[in-house]
Protein backbone atom coordinates (compact mmCIF):
# COMPACT_ATOMS: atom_id res chain seq x y z
CA UNK A 1 0.00 0.00 0.00
CA UNK A 2 1.11 3.51 -0.71
CA UNK A 3 1.38 6.27 1.87
CA UNK A 4 1.74 10.01 1.36
CA UNK A 5 3.14 12.25 4.10
CA UNK A 6 2.86 16.02 4.31
CA UNK A 7 4.89 16.99 7.35
CA UNK A 8 3.77 20.64 7.56
CA UNK A 9 0.16 20.95 8.78
CA UNK A 10 0.26 24.74 8.48
CA UNK A 11 2.49 27.30 6.80
CA UNK A 12 2.42 30.99 6.13
CA UNK A 13 4.19 33.21 3.62
CA UNK A 14 4.32 36.90 2.90
CA UNK A 15 2.71 38.08 -0.30
CA UNK A 16 5.19 38.07 -3.23
CA UNK A 17 7.55 35.69 -1.42
CA UNK A 18 8.34 32.08 -2.31
CA UNK A 19 7.21 29.08 -0.29
CA UNK A 20 7.88 25.35 -0.56
CA UNK A 21 5.46 22.67 0.60
CA UNK A 22 6.88 19.24 1.37
CA UNK A 23 5.56 15.84 0.39
CA UNK A 24 7.12 12.42 0.73
CA UNK A 25 5.64 9.10 -0.28
CA UNK A 26 6.30 5.45 0.14
CA UNK A 27 5.81 2.96 -2.67
CA UNK A 28 7.39 -0.09 -4.23
CA UNK A 29 6.08 0.89 -7.67
CA UNK A 30 8.43 2.16 -10.38
CA UNK A 31 5.84 3.91 -12.54
CA UNK A 32 3.31 6.22 -10.99
CA UNK A 33 1.89 9.74 -11.00
CA UNK A 34 2.03 12.50 -8.42
CA UNK A 35 -0.32 15.44 -8.04
CA UNK A 36 -0.75 18.61 -6.07
CA UNK A 37 -4.31 19.75 -5.48
CA UNK A 38 -5.44 23.09 -4.06
CA UNK A 39 -8.63 23.60 -2.03
CA UNK A 40 -9.39 27.28 -1.33
CA UNK A 41 -11.63 28.04 1.66
CA UNK A 42 -15.18 26.87 0.93
CA UNK A 43 -14.34 26.29 -2.69
CA UNK A 44 -13.76 23.43 -5.07
CA UNK A 45 -10.60 21.30 -5.06
CA UNK A 46 -8.62 21.93 -8.24
CA UNK A 47 -5.54 20.36 -9.78
CA UNK A 48 -2.40 22.47 -9.49
CA UNK A 49 0.23 20.28 -11.08
CA UNK A 50 0.88 16.71 -12.22
CA UNK A 51 4.14 14.77 -12.50
CA UNK A 52 4.81 11.48 -14.27
CA UNK A 53 7.41 9.45 -12.39
CA UNK A 54 9.16 8.24 -15.51
CA UNK A 55 9.83 11.82 -16.60
CA UNK A 56 12.89 13.30 -14.97
CA UNK A 57 11.98 16.86 -15.85
CA UNK A 58 10.17 18.68 -13.08
CA UNK A 59 6.67 19.87 -13.97
CA UNK A 60 5.87 23.58 -13.94
CA UNK A 61 2.63 25.56 -14.24
CA UNK A 62 3.19 29.30 -14.22
CA UNK A 63 4.17 30.23 -10.64
CA UNK A 64 3.93 26.62 -9.45
CA UNK A 65 6.78 24.15 -9.85
CA UNK A 66 7.78 20.87 -8.29
CA UNK A 67 11.04 19.36 -7.13
CA UNK A 68 10.65 15.66 -7.87
CA UNK A 69 13.34 13.45 -6.35
CA UNK A 70 12.42 9.89 -7.29
CA UNK A 71 15.16 8.15 -5.36
CA UNK A 72 14.32 10.09 -2.22
CA UNK A 73 10.57 9.68 -2.85
CA UNK A 74 10.08 13.39 -2.43
CA UNK A 75 7.71 15.69 -4.31
CA UNK A 76 7.73 19.27 -3.04
CA UNK A 77 5.69 22.16 -4.43
CA UNK A 78 7.24 25.60 -4.84
CA UNK A 79 4.99 28.62 -5.16
CA UNK A 80 6.75 31.72 -6.44
CA UNK A 81 5.49 35.30 -6.08
CA UNK A 82 2.80 34.18 -3.64
CA UNK A 83 -0.60 35.84 -4.04
CA UNK A 84 -3.51 36.20 -1.63
CA UNK A 85 -5.49 33.81 -3.82
CA UNK A 86 -2.96 31.08 -3.07
CA UNK A 87 -4.37 30.82 0.46
CA UNK A 88 -5.75 27.27 0.56
CA UNK A 89 -5.31 23.70 1.72
CA UNK A 90 -2.81 21.90 -0.47
CA UNK A 91 -2.93 18.15 -0.88
CA UNK A 92 -0.26 15.91 -2.32
CA UNK A 93 -1.57 12.74 -3.98
CA UNK A 94 -0.21 9.52 -5.51
CA UNK A 95 -1.61 7.27 -8.23
CA UNK A 96 -0.18 3.97 -9.42
CA UNK A 97 0.34 3.40 -13.11
CA UNK A 98 -1.36 0.52 -14.85
CA UNK A 99 -4.67 -0.92 -15.92
CA UNK A 100 -7.26 -1.07 -13.21
CA UNK A 101 -5.51 1.47 -11.03
CA UNK A 102 -7.97 4.24 -10.21
CA UNK A 103 -7.27 5.25 -6.67
CA UNK A 104 -5.62 8.46 -5.53
CA UNK A 105 -3.90 8.30 -2.18
CA UNK A 106 -3.85 11.70 -0.48
CA UNK A 107 -1.67 13.23 2.18
CA UNK A 108 -3.30 14.95 5.13
CA UNK A 109 -2.81 18.40 3.66
CA UNK A 110 -0.93 21.62 4.36
CA UNK A 111 -2.87 24.77 5.18
CA UNK A 112 -1.13 27.70 3.51
CA UNK A 113 -1.89 31.28 4.49
CA UNK A 114 -0.59 34.15 2.37
CA UNK A 115 -0.17 37.26 4.47
CA UNK A 116 -0.58 40.71 2.91
Amino acid sequence: AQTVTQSQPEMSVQEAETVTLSCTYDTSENNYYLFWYKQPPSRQMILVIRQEAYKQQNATENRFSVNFQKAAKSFSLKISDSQLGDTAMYFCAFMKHGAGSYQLTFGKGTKLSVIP
Partner: protein
Amino acid sequence: DVKVTQSSRYLVKRTGEKVFLECVQDMDHENMFWYRQDPGLGLRLIYFSYDVKMKEKGDIPEGYSVSREKKERFSLILESASTNQTSMYLCASSSFPGGAGQPQHFGDGTRLSIL
Protein backbone atom coordinates in the same frame (compact mmCIF):
# COMPACT_ATOMS: atom_id res chain seq x y z
CA ASP B 1 -14.54 22.63 -18.38
CA VAL B 2 -15.52 19.58 -16.44
CA LYS B 3 -18.48 20.18 -14.18
CA VAL B 4 -19.09 17.94 -11.19
CA THR B 5 -22.22 18.95 -9.34
CA GLN B 6 -23.18 17.78 -5.87
CA SER B 7 -26.84 18.22 -5.03
CA SER B 8 -26.39 19.94 -1.66
CA ARG B 9 -23.68 22.14 -0.14
CA TYR B 10 -25.03 21.68 3.39
CA LEU B 11 -27.23 18.93 4.77
CA VAL B 12 -28.50 18.22 8.27
CA LYS B 13 -29.98 14.82 9.08
CA ARG B 14 -30.88 12.83 12.18
CA THR B 15 -29.33 9.67 13.56
CA GLY B 16 -30.84 6.57 11.97
CA GLU B 17 -32.08 8.31 8.82
CA LYS B 18 -31.25 6.98 5.37
CA VAL B 19 -29.29 9.71 3.61
CA PHE B 20 -28.67 10.14 -0.11
CA LEU B 21 -25.87 12.29 -1.51
CA GLU B 22 -26.08 12.85 -5.24
CA CYS B 23 -23.35 13.68 -7.72
CA VAL B 24 -23.62 14.41 -11.45
CA GLN B 25 -20.82 15.01 -13.96
CA ASP B 26 -21.22 16.40 -17.45
CA MET B 27 -18.05 15.17 -19.18
CA ASP B 28 -19.03 11.59 -19.96
CA HIS B 29 -16.39 10.32 -17.53
CA GLU B 30 -16.26 6.60 -16.87
CA ASN B 31 -14.80 6.84 -13.37
CA MET B 32 -16.52 8.40 -10.38
CA PHE B 33 -15.45 8.58 -6.73
CA TRP B 34 -16.76 9.43 -3.29
CA TYR B 35 -14.36 10.75 -0.65
CA ARG B 36 -14.75 11.79 2.92
CA GLN B 37 -12.67 14.76 4.14
CA ASP B 38 -11.96 15.28 7.83
CA PRO B 39 -9.55 17.78 9.42
CA GLY B 40 -6.13 16.25 9.98
CA LEU B 41 -7.03 13.11 8.03
CA GLY B 42 -7.03 14.37 4.45
CA LEU B 43 -9.27 12.69 1.89
CA ARG B 44 -10.21 9.06 2.28
CA LEU B 45 -11.84 7.05 -0.48
CA ILE B 46 -15.20 5.52 0.37
CA TYR B 47 -16.25 3.92 -2.94
CA PHE B 48 -15.55 4.31 -6.61
CA SER B 49 -17.12 3.18 -9.86
CA TYR B 50 -15.44 2.62 -13.22
CA ASP B 51 -18.62 1.86 -15.16
CA VAL B 52 -22.38 1.88 -14.87
CA LYS B 53 -23.57 -0.58 -12.22
CA MET B 54 -19.96 -1.32 -11.24
CA LYS B 55 -18.58 -0.37 -7.84
CA GLU B 56 -15.47 -1.01 -5.81
CA LYS B 57 -14.81 -0.45 -2.12
CA GLY B 58 -12.30 2.13 -1.12
CA ASP B 59 -10.53 2.49 2.19
CA ILE B 60 -13.52 3.23 4.43
CA PRO B 61 -16.70 1.67 2.95
CA GLU B 62 -18.30 0.61 6.24
CA GLY B 63 -21.69 2.22 6.80
CA TYR B 64 -21.97 3.39 3.19
CA SER B 65 -23.26 2.07 -0.10
CA VAL B 66 -23.35 3.51 -3.61
CA SER B 67 -25.46 3.39 -6.72
CA ARG B 68 -24.58 4.10 -10.32
CA GLU B 69 -27.55 3.49 -12.60
CA LYS B 70 -26.52 6.07 -15.20
CA LYS B 71 -23.05 7.03 -16.36
CA GLU B 72 -23.33 10.64 -15.28
CA ARG B 73 -24.72 10.04 -11.79
CA PHE B 74 -23.12 8.48 -8.72
CA SER B 75 -25.02 8.36 -5.44
CA LEU B 76 -23.64 7.80 -1.95
CA ILE B 77 -26.05 6.25 0.55
CA LEU B 78 -25.77 6.26 4.31
CA GLU B 79 -28.01 3.36 5.23
CA SER B 80 -28.53 4.43 8.85
CA ALA B 81 -26.78 7.69 9.58
CA SER B 82 -24.67 7.97 12.71
CA THR B 83 -22.99 10.96 14.33
CA ASN B 84 -19.52 9.71 13.34
CA GLN B 85 -20.53 10.19 9.71
CA THR B 86 -20.66 13.95 10.19
CA SER B 87 -18.12 15.15 7.65
CA MET B 88 -17.41 16.84 4.32
CA TYR B 89 -18.14 14.55 1.37
CA LEU B 90 -16.47 15.11 -1.98
CA CYS B 91 -17.43 13.59 -5.31
CA ALA B 92 -14.94 13.34 -8.18
CA SER B 93 -14.77 12.00 -11.71
CA SER B 94 -12.04 11.08 -14.19
CA SER B 95 -11.82 9.75 -17.70
CA PHE B 96 -11.02 6.23 -18.90
CA PRO B 97 -8.79 4.34 -18.50
CA GLY B 98 -7.67 4.07 -14.95
CA GLY B 99 -3.98 4.04 -14.15
CA ALA B 100 -2.92 6.48 -16.86
CA GLY B 101 -2.61 9.42 -14.52
CA GLN B 102 -5.83 11.20 -15.43
CA PRO B 103 -6.53 13.90 -12.88
CA GLN B 104 -9.73 13.69 -10.90
CA HIS B 105 -12.17 16.59 -11.08
CA PHE B 106 -14.01 17.46 -7.90
CA GLY B 107 -17.38 18.84 -6.93
CA ASP B 108 -17.88 21.60 -4.36
CA GLY B 109 -18.51 19.14 -1.55
CA THR B 110 -21.44 18.44 0.76
CA ARG B 111 -21.02 19.29 4.41
CA LEU B 112 -23.17 16.73 6.21
CA SER B 113 -24.15 17.03 9.85
CA ILE B 114 -25.79 14.12 11.64
CA LEU B 115 -27.60 15.15 14.82
